[in-house]
């Protein structure tokens, strides 16, 4: 078998060789991939036993990489307050170099967005220490799930950039495209697993892309909703309906791969010590904006809901040129009352109810 040269930008990996390749990777990295567990749920999981793990590349995992880079709850510091002073010590955590394998385009786009949020204005050390040393191996989506609409947010079903290696399922083989330098290094290091790809493979990839694009079951007019938000023409009843139906669970923000709002709070351990925690927060919670003394500049539930969609669809477009919604559809299935982004877009585009 002719060995691949790392200088070409795309290669082939036979499906039979995938486990072998992952086994090699797992020796040098911590391996995280979407795994279908015995309860039939698909979660990004740290894989300890590759043979026992059923890696699932079709159904999108229910958690996203946010859980790994911005955990639901993380200890930032331990502190002590003694006559000697009030002292903060950052939590020492060693995050092993990790390969995130099988990341869908929506989740890859989300990581790129988080990278911007956590390093644009200030470099967030706690995010970056988890993010640094991570290798992202993406897989393009051949068959979007029923709630998916990444085609409407420009973040799928196929991705040209963002990952270190990008895989496309071509039946018996993966087309492997090199994104960034770490991907290049992986191919270089394990050349034996890869063979050169040809025009036929590129054509197959294009064909797969066309087919995937035709498989979306939802038409979500994100662009139109963005225009409405920008013009301020979303009818008031839309906000009222959504806020009546919102059950305040925060699930949309928690499962969203790009919702990065967090809170920082202290937890007392004893009289002289405690810890400072950072945890996920949701802008739809009433307490998100409440100030001490009870005054809340966001008084109505309608304003809080409005803020959520404004941020994702208007403010982030203004700032980054694209919405921070990546069309993964997680908030659609997580929503109790049906006040998710898809319902919002539908309602906003209807103009009135």
């Amino acid at each position, binding site marked *: 078998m002719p060995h691949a040269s790392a200088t070409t930008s795309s290669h082939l990996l036979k499906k039979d060789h995938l486990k072998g390749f992952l086994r090699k990777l797992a020796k040098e990295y911590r391996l995280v991939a979407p795994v279908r567990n015995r309860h039939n749920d698909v979660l990004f999981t740290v894989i300890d036993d590759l043979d026992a793990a059923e890696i699932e590349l079709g159904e999108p995992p229910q958690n996203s990489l946010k859980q790994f880079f911005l955990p639901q709850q993380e200890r930032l510091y331990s502190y002590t307050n003694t006559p000697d002073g*009030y002292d903060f010590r950052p939590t020492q955590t060693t995050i092993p170099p990790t390969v995130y394998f099988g990341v869908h385009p929506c989740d890859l786009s989300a990581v790129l967005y988080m990278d911007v*949020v956590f390093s644009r204005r200030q*470099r967030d050390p706690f995010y970056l220490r988890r993010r640094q040393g991570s290798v992202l191996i993406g897989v393009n989506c051949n068959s979007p799930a029923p709630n998916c609409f990444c085609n409407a947010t420009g973040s799928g079903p196929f991705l040209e950039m963002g990952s270190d290696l990008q895989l496309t399922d071509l039946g018996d083989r993966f087309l492997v495209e090199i994104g960034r330098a770490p991907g290049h290094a992986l191919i270089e290091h394990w050349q034996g697993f890869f063979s050169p790809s040809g025009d036929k493979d590129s054509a197959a990839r294009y064909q797969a892309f066309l087919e995937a694009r035709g498989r979306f079951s939802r038409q979500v007019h994100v662009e139109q909703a963005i225009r409405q938000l920008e013009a301020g023409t979303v009818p008031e009843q839309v906000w009222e309906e959504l806020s009546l139906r919102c059950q305040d669970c925060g699930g949309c923000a928690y499962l969203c791969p790009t919702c990065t709002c967090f*809170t*920082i709070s202290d937890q007392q351990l004893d009289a002289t010590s405690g810890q400072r925690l950072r945890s996920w927060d949701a*802008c739809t919670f009433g307490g998100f*904006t409440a100030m001490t003394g009870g005054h809340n500049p966001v008084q109505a539930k309608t304003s809080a809901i409005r803020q959520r969609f404004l941020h994702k669809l*208007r403010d982030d477009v203004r700032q980054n040129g694209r919405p921070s919604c990546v069309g993964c559809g997680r908030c659609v299935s997580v929503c109790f009352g049906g006040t998710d982004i898809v319902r919002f877009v539908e309602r906003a585009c209807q103009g009135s109810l």
Partner: protein
Amino acid sequence: MPQPSTDIYLPRQAKVEQIEVENSQISTFVLAFCDRSDNDAFRYQPGQFMLVSMPHCGEAPISISSPPTRPGNIHLSVRQAGKLTTAMHGLRVGDTIGLRGPYGRPFPMEQLEGKDLLFVAGGIGLAPLRAVVNTCLDQRDRFGALTVLYGSRTPSDIAFQSDLGLWRKQGMDCRLTVDAAEPGWDGAVGLVTSLLAGLKPELSRSIALICGPPLMFRAVLGKLAAMGFSDEQVLTTMERHMKCGVGICRHCHMDGKLACVDGPVFSLAELRRLKIMELDG
């Protein structure tokens, strides 16, 4: 400004050097970083704020009430409102607190140069303006006439008395009003807007700086507009719940803007472009 530490969330220890009781609810804490070089290197501008850590209370944003023209100390004037500020009011000289900052967009001091400045404040709202007033007084020839209008609930609630006294001595026009008089009070009674009536500002070179509770804020805006102030001539500093202070956590969102990095100082013209509770009611 470069941060000495690369950890943007790490508070630095600061010692309470002095506490000035301003009224029953407000005290000014005079602080200095425990690390001398930190203290020497500390630079800020009026209108910026610090995030204060108190043991087991988390953090809260407090605007700096001292002028950058008097380095060596940071003054934080704090009203007792929640858990953290209540804990601060239990501090004694020599105690240590945590500080990080300075954060936020300051008052545009260059734009104020040569202008007549009209300060309108209610209660604790005078704290951030105090930093501006004292900066102006320390560089008196850079600015025009300075007028302070200050509203309090009752005469015994009037905070910053020693400042007001000093300012008057330096020739500033300081006018006070209270919501409810007490025996012995012969000053004005009523909203701070009533003090505006007596003023004849030179509109072409005036700028108003306002800080106070939302109700007062709206009333003052109405009055200033009636007097002929344009939205560009009105500056204010906004209060919001904050956690990170650096534009990530989004607790301080204001319709697309973040108070911690886009503010807390805004011109009224900027605020008018936002849908916020202070203007919409």
